[in-house]
């Protein structure tokens, strides 16, 4: 049976809701410091005195920081510092023991995970968590479905909304695969993708939910320098489409090179906050990383 979707490239472009593949408006060389151009003072996400305990373990201890719209924000710290826990609290996986997290002025505490996603926070996982038996394209389409309204009835009877959303969702998903550079793997089952491709696919899937804030949990883990360089470029490209990026990363050079501001956690506590230069010179941070040079890990 022939599938309904046979769109031409022109249709692909037209159906694409947000032209993610446009050239970066402000460009910027990779090696130069590259402050985010649209960075305003508008607060997007506010972590407000958040404490999160697992039994006796205090994974987050009275942590506060806020993200501004349009910036690339780094969240760093040694292993077990509470970075992933912080993501989990923001995306509704864990509920803070105390304190609140506000996104665009609204508390996300107690909201369902899928509501938070539809509200505009998307994330990737430290250990890749794709849907392994689905194709790359299908994985991204699950993300795109977050904002779709096709009901069981319209899918069952192939009502106009089904055709329209299937077509636009598909086009947008393909566009995102191209954006992250793995369009040629669209039809492959995601478990067959290489590790680097899987990490990119996770980013595409998260972007498909149309986020305002994208949280990346160690996206460069296991990458070689060339791949890291490409990732750096990709993160900037994402920022240039207007998405705020929150980045957990162990590679100091990458973090220093791409972020506008950084928060450093250690044992669940915030020990420093500031621009990359400020953080680099902070004695507490140097101590936390045991005096290891900045390109540790």
């Amino acid at each position, binding site marked *: 049976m022939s599938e309904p979707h046979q769109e031409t490239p022109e249709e692909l472009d037209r159906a694409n809701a947000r032209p993610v593949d446009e050239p970066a408006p402000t460009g910027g060389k990779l090696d130069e410091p590259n402050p985010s151009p649209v960075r305003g003072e508008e607060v997007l996400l506010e972590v407000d005195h958040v404490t999160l305990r697992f039994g006796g373990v205090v994974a987050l201890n009275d942590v506060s920081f806020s993200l501004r719209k349009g910036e690339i924000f780094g969240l760093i710290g040694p292993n077990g510092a509470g970075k992933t826990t912080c993501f989990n609290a923001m995306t509704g996986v864990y509920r803070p023991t105390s304190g609140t997290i506000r996104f665009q002025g609204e508390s996300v505490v107690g909201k369902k995970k899928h509501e938070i996603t539809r509200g505009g926070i998307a*994330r990737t996982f430290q250990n890749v968590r*794709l849907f392994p038996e*689905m194709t790359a394209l299908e994985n991204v389409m*699950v993300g795109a479905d977050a904002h779709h309204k096709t009901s069981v009835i319209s899918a*069952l009877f192939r009502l106009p909304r*089904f055709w329209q959303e299937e077509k636009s969702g598909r086009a947008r998903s*393909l566009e995102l695969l191209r954006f992250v550079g793995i369009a040629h793997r669209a039809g492959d089952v995601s478990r067959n993708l290489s590790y680097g491709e899987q990490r990119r696919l996770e980013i595409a899937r998260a972007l498909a939910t149309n986020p305002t804030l994208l949280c990346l949990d160690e996206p460069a883990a296991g990458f070689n320098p060339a791949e890291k360089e490409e990732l750096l470029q990709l993160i900037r490209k994402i920022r240039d489409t207007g998405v705020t990026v929150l980045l957990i990363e162990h590679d100091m050079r990458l973090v220093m090179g791409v972020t506008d501001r950084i928060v450093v956690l250690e044992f669940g506590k915030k020990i420093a906050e500031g621009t990359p230069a400020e953080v680099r010179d902070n004695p507490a941070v140097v101590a936390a990383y045991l005096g290891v040079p900045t390109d540790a890990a």
Partner: protein
Amino acid sequence: MSEKASFRSNGGVRGWYGRQPAWVQWIVIAIALVLAFLLPYAGDIPLIGPQIVTEGIDWPSALFNMSYYVLLALGLNVVVGYAGLLDLGYVGFFAVGAYGTALLTSPDSVLYADTGWKWLMAVPVALALTMVAGLILGWPTLRLRGDYLAIVTLGFAEIIRIFATSTTTLRGDRGFASIPHPPGTWNGEPIFGVTDAVPYFWLGLVVIILVILGVRNLDRSRVGRSWLAIREDEEAAEIMGVRTIKYKLWAFAIGAFIGGLGGVLFAGEQGFINSQTFVLQFSILVLAGVVMGGSGNMAGAILGGALISYIPDRLRGISLGDTDLYEYRFALFGLVIIIIMVLRPQGLIPSRRRAMELKDREKEVAPQ
């Protein structure tokens, strides 16, 4: 990027089929349909015909049995195969469909004075009832994880059975008689009579085709993607915006609806049901059929469902020495399942996705 890029073709019949132009595919489907409708006359095929048809039971009746087992397998496949929810009490929905029909139509029913409907009138009400039963069971339980869900659904089927056995309204062993047959006449004779099961089989076949089309439409849409995502990684699915509870409930309700369809067809053909029909074995058998055929794959579910009905019926009336093989049907059947699962752990017709998974595992262990 064209559609073909996202189509994963592989070898074998399915690979061949996938590469054919649309018109060839339609011809293949048309031929398969015609052959399916001609199945009641399979006994007339020279040489192999007599080997195929059942001896201890009239062949069209065996075909009808297969048709409602296939329906049940298709419905359970949505729940277990697509959404990954282990439902051990699926027969409960079959029972609700059958009892719903009986209550609304049989003269034995307490409702008879008020209803006493024709079969066709009772069908939509009985089906609505099964969907509601699915929702009532699903709403509190779908928050539970795997093992717990299995236990609760097991309990549900037992509750329905015990209810049917011990309440006077549902009449236990005495059951409901004179449930009307489906409507329609041909040359002044009712189409759905008591002697000829062929029309019932054809009716079952039509219902199966409609169910296949419906499930296929759901599978290739946002709904099917959500089910699959839930099956693969429920938490990741929810973090990607899938309303997991909602889609699990839909899987349950759709599964219940299809099981209910099997129930109303069964009641309409038999004309009589009692509490003996809905034993737990039934649920396990259907589940075995789905797994044996290839969970998560409609062709597999159809084949599995047909086999769990066909194998015991075929064994009827065959004797080895003094023993009638039918008496050993469950033992033999168990043996057949074990052999199939050893030889083809992914089921007879593995789902495309699961076949992939298996191949990858082979690759992983093979030296690089």
